[in-house]
């Protein structure tokens, strides 16, 4: 056996760091299908998982990959898959199954430029609304967005911890640049890494209800095959997991699925700010584009412009309250993202009536330049 936590200093890509973060978090199952620019995550997991007592399966496609991940998690194993745009589209159906069955798991989307096959080896952030609404029905989702290899490591651990705590799939929305960029990654000792495990049921196995809410509105989760009564279906179901085609049951189930996220926003939402204290313009960004935003804020400050940055570590759920509070005291927002306006729509919605919001974006294939951001910042001040 090899150590699951590669304590030490490494020079690795964001993809490799993501895989190492998963292993450090306790992930022991990966079901996937290779796709640029996410293949290196699968490659690393294929090489490492068997040596730490885990299982890697290359499935026949991404539909099956996502099904395998949901199944493995129901069996009690922390599980993950990684893909890019075309595969993410195929995963949407079973992602919804994972949400409905309240299955902890992590899905990584190393975004490339779309639509369709698009630019396989080039970056974009065009799947942010798909992350929010890509599967059918009304639900809440947690999505993180790392901007460096080091963040890919830590955010993957965070993703597993949130998935386990809230019994839900968690998305990591990275991109080709972060995935393929090599940087220094420092991996701490295993005992310094905080790991969250799903709450397990207690009491009589024949009295267990797999969907009876516990702490935070989250039901304790038994693994299939342990002897607890476990019935799972994508149909609307009651606390026993049995189908119930009534409006009342639908109301109860969906409200609880949505509520376990909405009622715990303070615990889930994470943002970082840079020079926001006296900022007149707030540059909002996430993932790789925060690197552009950071450089632009520094340059703007050198020009005497009071710019600051709000970095969304969790993009979903969206930090509505924070944007609204800022909107009350700043001159405006500039959202930086590699698409033609997705998170920008959220910023605009939350700032509406209080402050203007501009977008700096493009169709994908390259990073946004700091100059383009500074130009937009100037338009606001």
């Amino acid at each position, binding site marked *: 056996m090899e150590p699951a936590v590669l304590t030490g200093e490494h*020079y690795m890509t964001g993809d490799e760091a993501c895989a190492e973060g998963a292993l450090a978090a306790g992930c022991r199952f990966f079901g996937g299908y290779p796709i*640029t620019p996410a293949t290196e995550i699968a490659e690393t997991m294929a090489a490492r998982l068997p040596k730490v007592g885990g299982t890697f399966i290359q499935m026949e496609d991404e539909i099956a990959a996502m099904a395998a991940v949901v199944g493995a998690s129901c069996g009690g194993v922390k599980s993950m898959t990684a893909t890019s745009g075309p595969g993410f589209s195929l995963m949407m159906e079973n992602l919804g199954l994972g949400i409905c069955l309240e299955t902890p798991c992590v899905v990584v989307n190393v975004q490339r430029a779309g639509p369709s096959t698009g630019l396989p*080896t080039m970056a974009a952030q065009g799947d942010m609304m798909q992350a929010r609404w890509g599967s059918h029905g009304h639900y809440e989702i947690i999505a993180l967005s790392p901007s460096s290899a080091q963040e890919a490591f830590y955010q993957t651990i965070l993703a597993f911890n949130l998935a386990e705590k809230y019994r839900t799939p968690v998305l990591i929305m990275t991109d080709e*640049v972060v995935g*393929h*960029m*090599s*940087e220094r990654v420092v991996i701490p000792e295993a005992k310094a890494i905080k790991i969250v495990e799903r709450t397990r049921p207690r009491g009589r196995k024949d009295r267990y209800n797999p969907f009876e809410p516990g702490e935070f509105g989250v039901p304790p989760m038994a693994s299939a095959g342990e002897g607890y009564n476990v019935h799972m279906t994508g149909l609307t179901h009651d606390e026993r997991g049995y189908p119930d085609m009534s409006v009342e049951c639908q109301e109860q189930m969906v409200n609880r699925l949505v509520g376990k996220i909405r009622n715990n926003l303070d615990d889930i939402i994470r943002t970082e700010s840079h020079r926001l204290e006296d900022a007149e313009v707030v540059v909002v960004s996430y993932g790789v584009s925060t690197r*552009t935003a950071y450089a632009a804020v520094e340059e703007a400050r050198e020009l005497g412009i009071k710019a600051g940055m709000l970095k969304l570590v969790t993009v979903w759920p969206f930090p509505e309250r924070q944007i609204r509070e800022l909107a009350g005291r700043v001159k405006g927002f500039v959202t930086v993202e590699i698409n033609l306006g997705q998170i920008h729509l959220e910023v605009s919605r939350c700032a509406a009536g209080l402050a203007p919001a501009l977008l700096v974006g493009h169709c994908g294939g390259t990073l946004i330049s700091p100059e383009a951001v500074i130009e937009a910042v100037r338009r606001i001040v």
Partner: protein
Amino acid sequence: MKGIVHPMTDNQKKLVAKEIIITGFGGQGIVLAGKILGQAASLGDHLESTLIQSYGPESRGGACSAQVIISSETIHYPYVRKPDILACMSQGGLDKFVGVLEDDGFLLIDQDLVSPAGISRDYYAIPSTRLAEELGRKMMANIIMIGFITAVTGVVTMESARDTVEKSVPKGTEKMNLAAFQKGYEYGLAVLKGRRKKAEEKAGKVA
């Protein structure tokens, strides 16, 4: 910069950053070359560094480049815009990037793959492909180029570069790759020595 006792201004700090582009075709080990330089700077010399790889959807033969930034400061924007060092292992790479190379930057070429004709600026040439063939493996031209870059530009220390080559190549090939690195490094030192000698002769004549 020697002798300055005042703390550096932000602009001066930025000058510490070195931007490097290595260009070639998919399959030549261009990304590995970039990774060795970046890793040598990061883990060996304890500087900050980023490596961006850029290539097309084809697995071999397409245009490929590695962009490395080495800095004493945190690197935010990871794209290279005005390289200080441009190492070309393909004609296309030279044609694409020579225009953005800093005026006082280093241009290095594999003279077997890139024609020096038409280059209107100072450059350093090495027959790295031919030297690699002589050492028994054409594939090692990238490692020879790393030795050459290290000697000519001093962007990473020789010790860090050599150690990183040893750690980065497939097991069992360390010895021949270290020989390739040494070959490129010594070739670089010889080129520098030749230039110094020439400059001294010229200075002597003037005196």
